[in-house]
């Protein structure tokens, strides 16, 4: 096998570091997915579009001359209100219904958002330059853009902040109570409608953070949202709902897998590899469960 990555072992270090830094970012998006799935029991196909929209906010700041790194503060604030209004418009009507309804409705939102972003920002691939420089390791064999390090650190900080917020604050407690049993929470005086709106807003805000980090580390394009949705879905089904260390680990695992598949199969098959991995994981779990006469549900 004459794959480049096996001939030059230092590339494995490069791929692993890239993958882990990337995976932390994925884990942040997946955490938002797990939050809304666990609390509201909906699957949001428009998750990736929220990420890209958050990224465009950072890009817009870059265009008007503000350093895009400040996007991690501005973007979640705007995205919180975007998520909140999205909840009030559409999502509150699908919360108590079949999961497929939420999948299809958010699929509609995703198509709509893609096209609106295409109108607003154009269909070019854009990137917000951060000018953070590059770190060289191992005698210039491994290069790490500082923006990726920055992205990973910011993601970890936001994840920790969110965990603290969920543990300590009153709203966090209400969200956890609603996730456990919405009816009991309602009886005990929790305004579940408000909790749902806040949950969706927090999820959108997390997407905003992740998006603005993607804007400075990778590229933005109106139509690349769906892979982010699928990645976060995959991370959540591997880790399970409410398992935060699991989300972080499987996020990193996914990132490393993607980087290695880049070297082995070629970059043009990257998206295909992600989606096939999803199919493979689901089918694998289906066969594992069917031995016990159970099924994924």
């Amino acid at each position, binding site marked *: 096998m004459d794959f480049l990555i096996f001939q030059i072992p230092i590339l494995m270090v490069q791929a692993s570091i890239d993958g882990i830094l990337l995976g932390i970012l994925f884990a942040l998006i997946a955490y938002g997915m797990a939050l809304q799935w666990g609390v509201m029991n909906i*699957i949001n196909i428009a998750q990736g579009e929220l990420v890209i929209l958050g990224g465009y906010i950072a890009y817009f700041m870059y265009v008007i001359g503000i350093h895009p790194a400040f996007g991690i503060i501005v973007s979640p604030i705007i995205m919180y209100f975007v998520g909140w209004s999205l909840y009030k418009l*559409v999502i509150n*009507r*699908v919360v108590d219904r079949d*999961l*497929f*309804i939420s*999948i*299809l*409705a958010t*699929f*509609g*939102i*995703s*198509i*709509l*958002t*893609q*096209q*609106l972003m295409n*109108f607003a920002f154009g269909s070019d691939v854009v990137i917000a330059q951060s000018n953070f420089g590059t770190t060289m390791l191992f005698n210039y064999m491994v290069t790490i853009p500082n923006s990726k390090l920055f992205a990973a650190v910011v993601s970890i900080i936001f994840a920790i902040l969110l965990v603290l917020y969920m543990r300590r604050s009153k709203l966090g407690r209400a969200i956890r109570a609603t996730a456990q049993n919405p009816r009991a929470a309602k009886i005990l005086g929790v305004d579940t409608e408000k909790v749902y709106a806040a949950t969706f807003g927090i999820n959108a805000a997390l997407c905003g953070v992740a998006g603005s980090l993607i804007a400075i580390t990778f590229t933005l394009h109106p139509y690349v949202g*769906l892979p982010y949705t*699928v990645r976060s*879905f995959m991370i959540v*089904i591997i880790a399970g709902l409410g398992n935060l260390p699991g989300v972080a680990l499987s996020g990193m695992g996914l990132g490393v897998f993607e980087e290695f598949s880049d070297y082995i199969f*070629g970059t*043009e*098959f990257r*998206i*295909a590899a992600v*989606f*096939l991995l*999803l*199919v493979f994981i*689901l*089918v694998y779990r*289906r*066969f594992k469960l*069917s031995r016990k006469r159970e*099924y*994924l*549900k």
Partner: protein
Amino acid sequence: MNQKAILYLALLAFGIAVPFMFPAYKLQISIMWILVVLSLTWDVQGGQMGYNTFGNIMFFGLGMYICSSFQIGIFFPLAEWTASGGEKTFIHTPTQFFQGFFIGIIFAGIIPALVAAIIGYGILGLRGHYFAICTLGLAIAAGELAGGIELVGAGQGMTSPPWPKNIGDTELRSEFFYYICFVLMISTFLFLRWAYTTRFGLVLNAIRDNEDKAEAMGINTMRYKISGWVVSAFFVGIAGGLMGNMIGYIEPVETAFAGRTFGVFMVVMAILGGKGTLWGPVIGAIAFHIFKEGFWTFFLGWQYVALGALIVIVVIFFPEGIMGWLREKYPDRFGEVIDEEDRKAQVELK
């Protein structure tokens, strides 16, 4: 009964007469019949069986590629054809064209059906939203993979064989494809109409209502689920092969594995018409096609915004579809007898 026969005959006569009544819209109406086939076959899974799939578009693209590959590959080296791009260095004679076309169409049905049978055991064991997301992933992966295969033109796609030069003009071409599409639509409809009256249809509905119970009653549900998917894949594959020939150009992500257009359309059409009914998908497809063409013509550029909004509105406010609405309004037309006293008693209980 007699009334029904007259209705069917009138529709048949209308379908046959369309190319002469609306000569300018032949291609549009051919595409409408294709859409009817797509929504009817989606309904086998989504409506009758309760397995909401986003993956039927995979068979569409597969059929499209296979049909054109056979049409070309039988007579000429396929790699050279795709490498030459738009400039056609080989020309089919009329005999070659029609032989290739029919062989290609047959394989465009059989191979997707085989694929469905092979992957069915793994995929159809998933349920609910896992099945939906898994098939979505499968369809997108198929498109991305097709965009990486050099033999079928990779990302830039391939052309399907052009209509042979010396046997008539483009009018004859669109009439030919119109009637093939019409026959495909009729045969899909009649086949499903027959299938829903058999044990097969009953089992599909049993799976939708409660799969565990159906299994407990001794039905091998997996066998029926797979056969349902094979039927869908067969007709969708043929529809794909026809579509590839009609538009003349196959692009992996935009036309063949077009998750953003046809893949979503088939779901929306079936739900708009009323899923789980025989006529619903047909009505939904026709209504949707008229809506779509109107929008695509007058508000070009806003079509995806409209599509997204339509999906949200249909799913949230209109999940029963046109047939469900009609059924609510005129229950006696659907053979349902409502006991007024019983209904009143139920209302009082609430």
